[in-house]
């Protein structure tokens, strides 16, 4: 909301600079985001009076004016059609520099000398009217600088308001706050109205069909109005609030809304087919054209104002095109009503519009401010449109909404705020907020209906601290509470993983898990993603079901920036939407590896990392937690068919590992090979035994034996190891593969594998003979099972 400093000063006395005011308001919850100045100083522009106008001898459209500036009379040539004798106008004297950059100098217009310029609003940049010169009010003193005569220098406070305070959506509400902060009082807005003899009730009746939606509807009739441009002071106020002046009728309703916070609406009375207003709910699919020329389809959430035959406005939200005030309007029906905030909100959400009016009603206007506002507007109609205000307000208010009383215990204030305020101090703060206080076993506060936000004791405590000042509250530094502070086990486990991987040279990335459904479908065709009903855009409309897409995007992004070596991981959530149940989410770990195995070094040749590099990382990561895994060949669109494996720990699938498929690399425009692993870290955590008991150290020494075998190339090393362990029974403690060879020295289709086997007995020291016997059995078994031959 934009609040003019000059306007505020009309409503309340205070002695603060604009910066001080802004800071006080900000502290009290009216956050002043910005202060702009309005109306730069117009040096050498004064109020002048046109004494005489005569035609230019050689130009039809120009006039020669004799203008008095108080000190002297000047001859000025003017091209505007609205020049006239005996009007006051702004004169830019010779030497003036206008805001638009125009420099005023003595000039000669088709043979006639001109000593200055008569200006339009637009030329002075104080308004938007440019058709003709600006005509000033006759009461202004000739010769006075225009800046001071029109009170042009102003500051506009741009205030960010919180949705709990409808009253701050008015100048009077902000003024009330200033009064409370400065210990001053708001000045009453003058309403003195001269009504005609003819009663308004003869012209209009108000019927409310939906009392819940519209608890109060008041109307006045003003006859014989003349639509015209508003006077400068009125336009100026609208400008200061960021609104555009339209004509005197519309401007008056807007002014009163800005001033008092009560939205008003003016109808052309003669466009009513019956002499009545009927407030009702719209019918489902009822159509109505609003004054922004949009045909809207309504539903039963929407309140309609009708003349009993046809709708004329959407109540509290927007008027209708067909009942709008036009230059031909002579009789105005003026509406001032109170609509239920929820009904207005539902209606405007359904219609997907927000107006100055709906903003105020949905936050909560003052049901008891309705008449004051309509009277204030009627007074201005009389003054500015020449209209006659018919007698009386036609006010339908079947059940009055009354102020409520709220109790406030001073000791509760002090307990919540840790203050030491007396009952008197608290009372005084509330009274300055125009909240009447009675003493009744503590305090009892009567809440005016313009403060719908105050319903409970705690609401009043907030009022006290706002006025008392947050900065005046103590700052207590003490522990308090429970001494037991448990470490979150999951956090701790994840922290360990992240630290391990960053130690291994992987950068952690964090990505947006709102992703493109198309890419998601290609990465994970079998799982349906959780879909956002109201996404920002289509490519951010589902939650990711795998971390792979985002990490491959990060790989691609960085490769495009000449980063050849990518080692990245993300530990984040993925989301699934199993049919017929609630969306599910869990933490996963994704790791991507691409580029060189080691940083470039003067000694070593650069070698690309491969499958075994990433497998090794996983072996270390899980091995740290004493978990070992098996790989089981698998299939996935993400990974190459012959380089795609499920990870299994103790027969549970915990993730996958492999080389990213060509198709996926193409999709993400990556030219190099990428290795990928994605693990279910929640499952891994559940498999880790957190408290392991100590295993006693072996009492007897081990014996190591090596064996080199030639076997078929397709035989898996793991099968050999399993066989060694089986054959060597309890004596085999550890089997380590230390050499793999294929080449000239073995026949084609074969490979040589060398293992070091550690034998140990828990019961005694094994003798050489005993070891020899076991080892022989092992070799025999390998020969039998795999047709292995010993390699010398």
């Amino acid at each position: 909301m934009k609040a003019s400093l000059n306007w505020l000063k009309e409503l309340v006395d205070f002695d603060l600079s604009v910066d001080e005011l802004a800071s006080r308001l900000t502290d009290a919850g009216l956050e002043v985001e910005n202060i702009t100045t309005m109306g730069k100083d117009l040096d050498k522009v004064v109020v002048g009076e046109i004494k005489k106008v005569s035609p230019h001898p050689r130009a039809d459209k120009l006039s020669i004016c004799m203008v008095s500036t108080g000190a002297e009379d000047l001859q000025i040539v003017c091209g505007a059609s609205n020049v006239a004798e005996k009007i006051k106008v702004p004169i830019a004297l010779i030497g003036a520099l206008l805001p638009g950059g125009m420099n005023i100098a003595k000039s000669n217009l088709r043979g006639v000398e001109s000593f200055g310029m008569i200006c339009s609003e637009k030329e002075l940049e104080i308004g938007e009217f440019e058709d003709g010169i600006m005509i000033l009010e006759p009461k202004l003193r000739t010769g006075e600088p225009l800046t001071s005569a029109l009170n042009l220098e102003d500051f506009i406070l741009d205030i960010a308001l919180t949705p709990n305070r409808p009253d701050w959506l008015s100048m009077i509400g902000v003024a009330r706050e200033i009064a409370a902060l400065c210990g001053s009082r708001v000045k009453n807005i003058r309403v003195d109205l001269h009504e005609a003899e003819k009663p308004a009730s003869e012209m209009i009746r108000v019927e409310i069909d939906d009392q819940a939606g519209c608890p109060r509807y008041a109307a006045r009739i003003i006859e014989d109005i003349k639509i015209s441009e508003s006077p400068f002071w009125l336009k100026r106020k609208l400008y200061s609030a960021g609104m555009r002046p339209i004509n005197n009728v519309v401007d008056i309703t807007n002014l009163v809304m800005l001033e008092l916070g009560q939205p008003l609406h003016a109808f052309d009375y003669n466009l009513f087919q019956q002499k009545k207003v009927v407030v009702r709910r719209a019918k489902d699919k009822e159509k109505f054209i609003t004054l922004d020329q949009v045909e809207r389809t309504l539903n039963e959430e929407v309140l309609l104002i009708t003349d009993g035959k046809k709708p004329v406005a959407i109540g509290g939200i927007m008027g209708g095109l067909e009942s709008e005030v036009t230059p031909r309007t002579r009789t105005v029906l003026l509406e001032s009503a109170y609509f239920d905030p929820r009904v207005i909100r539902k209606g405007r959400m359904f219609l997907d519009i927000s107006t100055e009016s709906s903003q105020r009603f949905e936050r909560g206007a003052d049901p008891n401010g309705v008449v004051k506002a309509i009277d204030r507007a009627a007074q201005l109609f009389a003054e500015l449109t020449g209209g006659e205000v018919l007698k009386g307000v036609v006010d339908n208010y079947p059940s009055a909404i009354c102020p409520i009383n709220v109790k406030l215990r001073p000791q509760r204030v002090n307990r919540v705020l840790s203050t030491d305020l007396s009952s008197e101090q608290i009372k005084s703060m509330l009274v300055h907020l125009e909240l009447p206080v009675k003493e009744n076993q503590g305090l009892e506060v009567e809440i005016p209906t313009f403060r719908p936000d105050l319903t409970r004791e705690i609401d009043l405590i907030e009022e006290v601290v706002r006025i008392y000042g947050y900065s005046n509250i103590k700052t207590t530094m003490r522990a308090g509470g429970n001494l037991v502070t448990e470490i979150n086990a999951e956090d701790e486990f994840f922290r360990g993983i992240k630290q391990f991987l960053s130690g291994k040279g992987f950068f952690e990335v964090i990505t947006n898990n709102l992703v493109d459904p198309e890419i998601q479908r290609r990465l994970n065709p079998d799982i349906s993603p959780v879909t956002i009903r109201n996404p920002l855009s289509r490519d951010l409309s589902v939650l990711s079901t795998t971390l792979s897409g985002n990490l491959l995007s990060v790989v691609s992004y960085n490769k495009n920036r000449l980063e050849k070596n990518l080692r990245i991981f993300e530990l984040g959530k993925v989301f699934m939407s199993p049919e017929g149940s609630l969306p599910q989410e869990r933490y996963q770990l994704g790791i991507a590896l691409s580029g060189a195995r080691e940083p470039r070094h003067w000694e070593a040749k650069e070698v690309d990392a491969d499958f075994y590099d990433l497998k090794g990382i996983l072996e270390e990561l899980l091995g740290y937690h004493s978990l070992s895994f098996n790989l089981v060949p698998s299939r996935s669109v993400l990974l190459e068919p012959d380089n795609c494996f499920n990870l299994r720990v103790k027969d549970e699938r915990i993730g996958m590992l492999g080389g990213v498929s060509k198709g996926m690399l193409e999709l993400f425009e990556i030219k190099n090979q990428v290795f990928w692993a994605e693990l279910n870290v929640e499952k891994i955590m559940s498999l880790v035994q957190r408290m392991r008991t100590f295993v006693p150290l072996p009492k007897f020494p081990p014996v190591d034996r090596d064996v080199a075998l030639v076997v078929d190339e397709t035989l898996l090393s793991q099968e050999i190891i399993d066989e060694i362990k089986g054959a060597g029974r309890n004596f085999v403690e550890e089997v380590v593969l230390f050499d793999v060879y294929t080449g000239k020295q073995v026949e084609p289709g074969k490979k040589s594998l060398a293992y070091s086997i550690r034998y140990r007995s828990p019961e005694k020291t094994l003798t050489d003979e005993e070891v020899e016997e076991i080892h022989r059995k092992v070799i025999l078994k390998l020969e039998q099972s795999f047709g292995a031959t010993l390699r010398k």
Partner: protein
Amino acid sequence: MLNTNEFQNSIQKTKEEAFREIDQENRLEGLEQIRVKYLGRKGIITSLLKNLKDFPEEDRPALGQLSNQLKKQVEEVLLQRAEKLKEIQLTLKKGRWFLDYTLPGRKGWVGKLHPVTQVNERIIQIFYGMGFEVAKGPDIETDYYNFSSLNFPQDHPARDMQDTFYINDDILLRTHTSPVQVRVFEKTEPPVRIIAPGRCYRNEAINSRSYCTFHQVEGFYVDTDVTFADLKGVLTAFVWEMFGKDVKLRFRASFFPFTEPSAEVDISCILCSGKGCSVCKHTGWLEILGAGMIDPAVFDAVGYDSEKFTGYAFGMGVERIAMLKYGINDIRLFYENDLRFLRQFQL
């Protein structure tokens, strides 16, 4: 003519100079030149010895001893250095490696944690030190936990404060980690003192100042005697630990449905020390978090006795804190994951 004292000093000085020269010499020929300079017939030490006769008789033996010692030491060091140089020459001749200690060492890759993680961890650490435990909740929440239980009524303009992604009428992506409050209250009796870190989502246009997902840390404490002064205390302590003890705090009134009284908390601009700069829009203050006393309506929703218990809650954006701490001007950088960005951060 030197006196006795000066003579002793000059011996000491000569010794230091000779040792330094020898140590820096890398050629055998150079060593020979140094030998001549000090020990030759007209050498410095030789001359010193010649001058002995000019001193009083009783001083001569002591001074003589000093000079001879010097001569011996220099001869010895010369010899050692010559041997070392010969050894190096031999090594080079044999073609063995000369240790160029300026070559880079063998190293592996170095990775780092994401700055959001680093700052998040730091926040958790600070509050853990004050006795807060970590609790977590789901990203996909119900309307009840995200809004209704937190005193955001249906059809109330307060709902407009947080643009929400909906999955259906009742299920949504949480807009803050405040739902964890309610989830904890449902399971625990006071006193409770918790921080709830986690990811949140807002349906806001993406630009340099806002992103559709971000991380928040919510903190809250409920007990029988928690006051607004305690809230000021805990947040002051946090700010001091995060940004340094010379940073000032400003609490100003605000509105959040689930706290009352509510406050926005600003810190004095850490970039210009409060003098005013473009980052703080020339106000000297930076908005850092929202806070307040937990609204009794929240206690009512979870069955806490709102007469007996009071509590405070606060919430801060992790990206926001990181941006302030490091002067980062575009929130999107956190989600772009450019390695040139990620390499820069180490708390």
